[in-house]
């Protein structure tokens, strides 16, 4: 009897391990990897829930997009891919595509044309369809400040952010060189369209770091997208760089007294790839087609202020579902906001990222 109970315990344990790992590969769920927080929530509302309602396939959200490329490389190398769809930045998608770890797509066949009949290749942001990548949003990294920190004159340009005398207070920047080096040069007087030209020279890099040096003591570095609104709200910093959607969420949903500085917004594309060898490839392709159609991309803007990456979606953008606010003034691509943007040069960062990040880390450690 005793023996029996031990045996059954062992069996139960085995079964527990077995069944729980079995659910991972069950065909009725898809693992979609994204950035977490308000962003994943917007995708869930706009894409995943309707998809589940339509097909009965459950979507499992995983918040690992921050380390998406690393995770994907490891899985491919091990021949054990567990992700079905990966949300990724345009720059990283180029690397993934070059390394052959993302599924190549036949855009005309795999995606729906625009609701107004625009063919796929013309509908998405120009030049973004690189063979594996389907962009879903245009988002910006930009500065915003807490109104309470500046009772008098308000900062309005990138140069103001670097001006500690005129606008004292702590700053918060993302803990990587991307965008920060661009802003440093802009604040140092480099014209917006010459930023990458200057940054390609060793002198330009020195110049950018020298400008960052002037505010280094006052900077708290953030790593997760949810941190900067929190830091602003807590009064830990006066000005923070952040993703525009997060600031929108704080402004409109949480009624925080934040103002966005649209000057020098660094915009880039974000979207989906399908990992090569995704466990449920067919369902993943269905999801990709469903999530990136005109209506779904427009729907996402009901939840977060990122611009849809399809032209045909733009006229369908309406109001924020929760608050009824008109979304258009909050979109980074709105002409009012789009006067002095910097397009993040994915190619430049793919090439020089390793060296600049190394230099940036060394600079931080000094």
């Amino acid at each position, binding site marked *: 009897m005793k023996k029996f109970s031990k045996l059954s315990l062992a069996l139960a344990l085995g079964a527990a391990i077995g069944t729980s790992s079995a659910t991972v590969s069950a065909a009725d769920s898809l693992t979609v990897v994204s950035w977490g927080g308000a962003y994943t929530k917007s995708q869930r509302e706009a894409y995943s829930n309707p998809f589940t309602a339509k097909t009965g396939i459950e979507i499992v959200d995983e918040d690992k997009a921050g380390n998406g490329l690393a995770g994907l*490389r490891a899985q491919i190398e091990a021949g054990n891919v567990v992700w079905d769809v990966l949300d990724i930045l345009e720059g990283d998608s180029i690397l993934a595509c070059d390394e052959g770890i993302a599924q190549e797509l036949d855009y005309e066949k795999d995606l729906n044309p625009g609701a107004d009949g625009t063919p796929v290749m013309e509908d998405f942001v120009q030049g973004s369809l690189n063979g594996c990548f389907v962009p879903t949003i245009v988002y910006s990294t930009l500065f915003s400040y807490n109104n309470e920190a500046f009772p008098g004159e308000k900062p309005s340009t990138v140069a103001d952010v670097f001006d500690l005398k005129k606008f004292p207070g702590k700053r918060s920047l993302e*803990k990587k060189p991307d965008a920060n080096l661009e802003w440093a040069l802009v604040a140092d007087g480099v014209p917006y369209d010459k930023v990458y030209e200057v940054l390609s020279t060793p002198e330009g890099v020195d110049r950018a770091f020298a400008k960052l040096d002037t505010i280094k003591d006052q900077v708290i*570095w953030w790593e997760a997208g949810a941190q900067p609104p929190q830091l602003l709200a807590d009064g830990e910093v006066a000005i923070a760089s952040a993703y525009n959607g997060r600031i929108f969420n704080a402004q409109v949903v949480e009624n925080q007294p934040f103002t966005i500085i649209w000057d020098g917004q660094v915009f880039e594309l974000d979207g989906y790839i399908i990992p090569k060898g995704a466990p449920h490839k067919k369902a993943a392709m269905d999801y990709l087609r469903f999530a990136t159609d005109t209506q779904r991309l427009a729907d996402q803007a009901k939840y977060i202020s990122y611009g849809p990456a399809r032209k045909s979606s733009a006229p369908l953008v309406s109001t924020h579902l929760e608050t009824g606010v008109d979304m258009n003034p909050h979109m980074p691509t709105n002409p009012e906001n789009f006067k002095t943007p910097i397009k993040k040069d994915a190619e430049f960062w793919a*090439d020089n990222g390793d060296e600049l990040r190394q230099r940036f880390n060394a600079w931080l450690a000094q």
Partner: protein
Amino acid sequence: MMANTVEADGQLTPEEQKRLTADMNRSLRLRKIRSLLLVAPLVIFILVTFVSPIASMLFRSIDNPQIIEYMPNTSAAVAEWDADSNQLPGEEVFAALVDDLVTGRKNHTIGKAATRLNYEKSGMRSLLTGSARKAARLKPPFKDKLIQINSDWGELDTWRVIKRESRPYTASYYIAAFDMETTPSGEIKFLPEQQQIYLKLFWRTVWMSLLITAMTLLLGYPVSYLLASLPMRIANMLMILVLLPFWTSLLVRTSSWIAMLQGEGVINDVLVWFGLVDDDNRLSMIYNATGTVITMTHILLPFMILPLYSVMKTIPPSYMRAARSLGATPFTAFYKVYLPQSVPGISAGAILVFILAIGYYITPALVGGQTGQFIGNMIAYHMQSSLNWGLAAALGVILLVLVLGLYAAYSRLLGTNNQMSLR
């Protein structure tokens, strides 16, 4: 022992003696095997689940398969080329390169070679991927056409890097981990001061770990002394105050320190309330080195107190009384009599805390800001963000060697059997 007794009686023939010894040996061997069988499952388990992962990491820090695998023709052809000749490789090497670029583009593998080479020389990534996009359209001879596509193909350094990384094993991750670089001429030298990072971080990790160890000793010594000299019943009660943090989740303690130390946190509120600190000038005690030191001191303090206490328990209080009665001042008695006897506890606690501290990752990541990061954070960064796994592995191996060296010192100090006895 039994054999001896029998022999002493002198009643056994040499024959029988030999047989008896053989029997003894066999049974000893059986017992040996039996004890080995008991240990075997765990030994095998640890070898598979723990030692092989570490070994695979060791291997990764020198493994260098990318160029050989994804640019096979080029790496074979460039081997013939004399890197010191001050002349570009010949047409056959360029032809091999075009071949690899075309295949690599088709199979989507050129990106892997490009990523690898970009670690060594910035710009190699777009040089390879960019040229690969155009390579299929090229007709021989290739040399000038490639140089026309990108003038970097006409640089000797480009080819020297390709030649250098065409070997199956590389030291370049270790070179990078020591803040050095291989110059185009093949010389290994330190990077310019402003670009050095890992040595600085190793140094900072060691330095801050020492500081944390000193802090835990400073706080732990009086408490252990008190606990060891109080009556057992009271000491056991107070011991709970030491053991409770010891048993509490690391993340719980870290998050409560965030709540305590942050700008709008409890400590600043109290200081402002008492008027010690101006409301606009709240102390920044977190997201910097101070935050890391305070939080880690708290987390590691029990690891100092427990060994100190167990050693101090064994020092008879009568020694101190004897010293005092012989006329020593309290200070002299403590310094000359008590302190020397507590040294084993100090060294055990100190090495334990130090070993634990230099491997920390979670706490510095959460409360360390930019000045409170440890080398562990850099390893995690290269694992998860920069994706330079070879460099992460090399840094890991260096840290591992450091820790194992310290541990060897530790077990020599204490004897092997009661390491880290938890209580």
